[in-house]
């Protein structure tokens, strides 16, 4: 079986000849750039700086040689733009806080504030207020909240839709070219077309916008989901309409080589509970996800990918009802997310893309033996009958020992025999 066939079998709940493996296919299944560099060294690959293809979380690009060394079965298709609104490309050298030389896009322009924190700018425009900050000595950026005082009378849903425009011909050409590029690899393809995540809290602050308007403060947005429901419905309704018009054009441009579409990265779980009630999910979010997923299923062969961290066990039936085919990252360390229960209860109805190793404790802080043990156990639990693509629980975080990452890969290979 080719990698693509393995991925397709898993997504269709047929047990593949071996477990397919994803790293780097999406912005939530990636590896921090420092760890990608360490992996290149470990596998003895050509010394060259790693590209930071997702600057917000500082994820590193996995080149063909590293994918081959790790046995990756999935390719990712990404949009041209980054979280900070500048495009990927025009690569140049940049030195991380830890002294590692990496490649960053030309728009990745930074300054330092008086405390030594690194500031980054929307669309690479240093004359605009900075939209992201990496603490001195840090590894990741976070959004800087730029919230104008809210005048309830003047709140306009259009202001929260600035980032959700219609796709341009250039974007369509980019997606088409990217899908063509990866189609020859023989791997499964997951595409992140964007625009279909409703209420994704990472996007609410508008880090790619020079002067975001509307509700951009994270806490204010969460409160608005209860206190300004009409406003949020209007935002989602219009966003959904735009998303479906865009999907029509994108599907026409890229065809059916795509195996899965990353539809939604909105987190609904905390470590111990959910961010809202099941009723609130059903009222406020489910109708829009269902429209998007129904469109995808009616017009394409793509499987739809839902990312949500945290304790979302009780939401899984709702995700399924909304038409999601795949759940990620399957945070087994959160309350109620016992792997055996998840597999038994939902394993025939949703694919687990993740759950392979705990990135909060075992992978960063455990021993290689503990990593191996957990990976083998998770593979035994999730693999029967298909419906499992191996990935860690969210991105591999900075400072994760390379020996542990390798132990994880080796354990997957050991399981595959």
């Amino acid at each position, binding site marked *: 079986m080719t990698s693509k066939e393995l991925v397709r079998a898993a997504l269709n709940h047929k047990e593949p000849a071996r477990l397919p493996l994803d790293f780097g296919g999406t912005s939530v299944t990636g590896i921090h750039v420092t760890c990608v560099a360490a992996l290149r060294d470990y596998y003895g690959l050509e010394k060259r700086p790693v590209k930071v293809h997702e600057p917000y979380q500082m994820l590193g690009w996995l080149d063909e040689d590293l994918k081959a060394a790790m046995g990756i079965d999935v390719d990712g298709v990404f949009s041209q733009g980054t979280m900070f609104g500048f495009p990927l490309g025009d690569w140049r050298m940049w030195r991380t806080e830890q002294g590692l030389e990496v490649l960053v896009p030309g728009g990745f322009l930074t300054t330092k504030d008086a405390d030594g*924190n690194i500031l980054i700018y929307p669309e690479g425009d240093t004359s605009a207020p900075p939209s992201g*900050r990496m*603490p001195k*000595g*840090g*590894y*990741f950026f*976070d959004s800087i909240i730029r919230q104008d005082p809210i005048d309830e009378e003047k709140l306009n849903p259009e202001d929260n839709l600035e980032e959700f425009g219609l796709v341009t011909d250039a974007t369509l050409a980019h997606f088409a070219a990217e899908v063509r590029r990866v189609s020859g690899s023989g791997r499964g393809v997951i595409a992140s077309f964007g625009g279909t995540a409703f209420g994704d809290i990472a996007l609410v602050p508008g880090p790619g916008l020079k002067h975001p308007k509307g509700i951009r403060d*994270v*806490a204010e947005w*969460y*409160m608005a*989901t*209860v*206190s300004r429901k009409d406003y949020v419905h209007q935002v989602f309704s219009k966003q959904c309409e735009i998303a479906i018009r865009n999907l029509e054009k994108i599907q026409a441009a890229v065809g059916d080589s795509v195996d899965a579409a990353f539809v939604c990265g909105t987190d609904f779980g*905390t*470590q*111990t*509970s*959910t*961010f*809202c*009630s099941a009723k*609130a999910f059903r009222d406020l979010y489910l109708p829009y996800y269902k429209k998007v997923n129904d469109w995808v299923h009616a017009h394409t062969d793509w499987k739809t990918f839902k990312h949500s961290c945290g304790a979302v066990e009780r939401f899984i039936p709702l995700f399924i009802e909304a038409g999601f085919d795949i759940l990620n990252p399957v945070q087994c360390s959160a309350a109620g997310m016992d792997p055996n229960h998840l597999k038994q209860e939902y394993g025939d109805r949703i694919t687990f893309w993740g759950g392979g190793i705990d*990135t*909060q*404790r075992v992978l*960063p*802080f455990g021993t290689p033996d503990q990593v191996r043990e957990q990976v083998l156990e998770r593979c035994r639990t999730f693999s029967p009958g298909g419906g499992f693509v191996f990935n860690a629980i969210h991105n591999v*975080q*900075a*400072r994760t020992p390379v020996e542990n990452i390798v132990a994880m890969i080796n354990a997957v290979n050991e399981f595959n025999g």
Partner: protein
Amino acid sequence: MADTSKLYDAILNGDSKTAVGVTKEALAENIDPMELVNKGMIPAMDEVGRRFECEEYFVPELLLAARAMKGSLELIRPLLAERGTEPAGRVVIGTVKGDLHDIGKNLVASMLEGGGFEVVDLGTDVSPEKFVEMAKEKNANIVCLSALLTVTMPSMKTTIDALQQAGMRQKVKVLVGGAPVTQQYANEIGADGYSENANSAVQLARRLVA
């Protein structure tokens, strides 16, 4: 005639405008501010916490209630200070060095304030030295440390070590929390307590200063 049940209801319903309105009304009628705190604010926030624990309330409702409570408290606080009223305890709270995440920390701070504690919020990316300095300056009984990232969790231990070196460790109780933090980790780094949510943090703080 203002009554404390209106304040209680306004906070519980997350209605900031009404909470501020009834507080102003009550203070204009010379109602004892401690009565507003003890019969309105604290019971309301206790009920908010209870509803959060049994999953009738979630993060948005908690944020709305906290905002209503704060609106009222801002009016009451100067009057309590004038009287020299002692809080339930003095808390210095912050997200540790290198970490910019603050939703969980803010909720804990609000719930502690609503529980009658005096809270000094140092914000995010707080150095161990800053925690020590402010704990000393504010004569804190409790220091609360928050972290979301695995790469910043070790800053919790560094902060506890800094409190130890400054001779402060016996004077304050250290509480830790945040998504990757566990009771086991709290034990390993020598914290006095761990809480998995904002409501149990208040109960824990009350026990520790009792």
